[in-house]
């Protein structure tokens, strides 16, 4: 049972919906999205492995981070596990 599996869970409160709702809050979020697309297309990791890496974040971290923060942490985690990254960026574990 993993923290991402929230269907039916109580306590997340009301929705926050605005008039425009652009997909990205900040430019770095779009960059993270593009980076993940490129890495998956190139076969550096599989989409399923990417999802798995988000899901195995410690539940407290998952709930405290924003959507694209999770994406970025999972990306750096996978790249480190594969020995493809040395830069000091947040990761899990």
């Amino acid at each position: 049972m993993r923290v991402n599996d929230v269907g039916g869970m109580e306590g997340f409160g009301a929705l926050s919906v605005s008039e425009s709702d652009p997909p990205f809050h900040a430019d770095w979020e779009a960059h993270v999205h593009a980076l993940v697309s490129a890495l998956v297309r190139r076969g550096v990791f599989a989409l399923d492995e990417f999802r798995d890496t988000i899901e195995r974040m410690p539940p407290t971290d998952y709930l405290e981070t924003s959507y694209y923060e999770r994406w970025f942490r999972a990306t750096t985690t996978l790249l480190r596990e594969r020995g493809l990254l040395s830069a000091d960026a947040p990761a899990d574990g």
Partner: protein
Amino acid sequence: MSEGHHHDGSIAQQVREVEAELEASGIVSAAELEAILDAMRTPADGARVVAHAWVDAAFRERLLGDATAAIEELGYSMHGGVRPQMLVALENTEAVHNVVVCTLCSCYPIALLGPSPPWYKSEAYRSRVVREPRAVLSEFGLELAETVEVRVWDASAETRYLVLPLRPRGTDELAEEHLAALITRNGMIGTASL
């Protein structure tokens, strides 16, 4: 805190550093990333599919029968991503209202609607709409009659869903491109009526 922005400054810097290292080692290229960003910034116009289905009954039938194939007539494809996906069109009627979610992550018909809005990815939406869709829809300003049957679709695999909204009354005279302008993203997710 999933809507939080508290680390934006440092994260933006970290993302740039990771990009730079991956470009330097040849794992991705700057041109490739820029091309993907450009594509994401181009407004997706899945509304064209809905407008066409409203004016062309034969296309509507093909769309409801096999949406994956039908959208290719209009130049869209479900095969542009990392693996082929299937598209299913969900027809709203006076008696049935459809609404789409992905409770496990954020699966969404990007090929037709572009990157998803923040609320679609929020825990509040993902957790609640499968349990209490009428309450969630009313927070979007959509009050459904009790007689309307609600169908929630959880996109948990390789299927993506497009809601075919009810055509607004009084639009019989409108041309297809003007109809398309009436069709909202939320209408095609099922969290708004038109």
